[in-house]
């Protein structure tokens, strides 16, 4: 079966982000999107630890311990950047000022519920960070994830079995097999990997998918 590579997934997300957008890229796979934002657009990256206008990683030797991203990796600040404190940072998120955030996920339900913070494994130390704020904060919430778990189970589900991060919050899902919009009338496939039929994708996913 063909699959979109991670780079292809990131490039596809990047193409869908318009000029002038304020965007938060979550930790993990979504971070790759930063390398695939169209060069002819000005897109302003937000990091929830207090920076708008985040730039790429610094040259080796130029790291500044006071200038990091939400993953605590060294970053740079572009010309035009702004620093602010945590309550402002999450206020701009919760207040609906961010155009888009891109998040990883364990599961997304057909209704757009997101599970991405906790596996619920007994004994696991729970850690939530900004996941719940991001899930409900941006105008558009995009999820990037593998379509199937390593065991071959669909990560798109009728109801999340992992603890949810937010309810009815996901707008679009980018997987290695398809791009799927979450709509009021159900899941709508807007792109699919070459050689895969909608019927086969539906069978693999175990949920209803529309063209």
């Amino acid at each position, binding site marked *: 079966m063909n699959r979109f590579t991670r780079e292809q997934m990131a490039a596809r997300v990047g193409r869908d982000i318009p000029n002038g957008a304020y965007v938060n890229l979550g930790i993990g796979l979504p971070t790759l999107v930063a390398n695939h934002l169209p060069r002819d657009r000005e897109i302003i990256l937000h*990091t*929830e*630890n*207090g*920076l708008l206008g985040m730039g790429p990683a610094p040259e*080796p*030797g*130029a*790291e*500044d*311990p*006071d*200038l*990091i991203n939400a993953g*605590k*990796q*060294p970053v740079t*600040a572009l010309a035009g950047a702004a*620093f*602010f*404190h*945590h*309550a402002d*940072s*999450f*206020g701009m*998120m*919760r207040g609906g000022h961010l155009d888009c955030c891109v998040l990883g996920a364990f599961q997304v339900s057909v209704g757009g519920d997101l599970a991405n913070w*906790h596996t619920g494994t007994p*004994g696991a*130390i*729970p*850690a*939530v*960070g*900004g*996941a*719940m*704020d991001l899930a*409900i*904060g941006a105008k558009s919430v995009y999820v990037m994830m593998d379509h199937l778990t390593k065991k071959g189970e669909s990560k798109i589900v009728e109801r999340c079995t992992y*603890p*949810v*991060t*937010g*309810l009815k919050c996901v707008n679009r899902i980018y997987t290695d097999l398809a791009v799927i919009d979450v709509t009021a009338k159900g899941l709508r496939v807007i792109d699919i990997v070459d050689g895969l039929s909608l019927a086969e994708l539906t069978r693999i996913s175990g949920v209803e998918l529309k063209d």
Partner: protein
Amino acid sequence: MIDKTVGTAAAAVADIGDGATVMIGGFGTAGMPSELIDALIDQGARGLTIVNNNAGNGEVGLAALLKAKRVRKIICSFPRQTDSYVFDALYHAGEIELELVPQGNLAERIRAAGSGIGAFFTPTGYGTLLAEGKETREINGRNYVLEYPIEADFALIKAQHADRWGNLVYRKTARNFGPIMAAAAKCTIVQVREVVNLGDLDPEAVVTPGIYVRRVVEIPMAAKFVAQPGAAA
């Protein structure tokens, strides 16, 4: 004359008592007031409730305070990190209580405490494990969770510059929780890299007005905090 500067970190933290609630600034190690924490460890207060975004990295700063078993409870959003092994061991041994709070709710609860808000409705966390048992309300078709302020006896934070009135300017993303913790605590103690003369800070650029600050300790940037190639954040 008002002079909030204090000579040493030890003098600045001397009156933090057993069982106190102490906010500690910083996101990971950016903005963490390491020298004030070291002074608190030396001072010996125990049974503390700590408010921080994380639960310590490696064995320095907050992690060292945890390792010294001075902390009864931690209120934070993201305890589990690749180098949070001190917290992890205490948690698994049942030797520390954890109150997990979504990061934006943590920030807003701290801000609420500093600005006299009794409680607030937030959409973050609605319908999740972290809102179980909490009061909820539908407002204009959207669901919210009632959250209460987090107050503290002390805040230990770090800034770049201060004057003797306690006005503060921060540096880059080390600002993070500093301004809101400064307002939320009864006694805010700041370590700054440099104390400047009154009037040297541009009033248009002051981030934390001195009204929120009780004590200022000058601790120049240590060589270990100057950017090093490959230094992990």
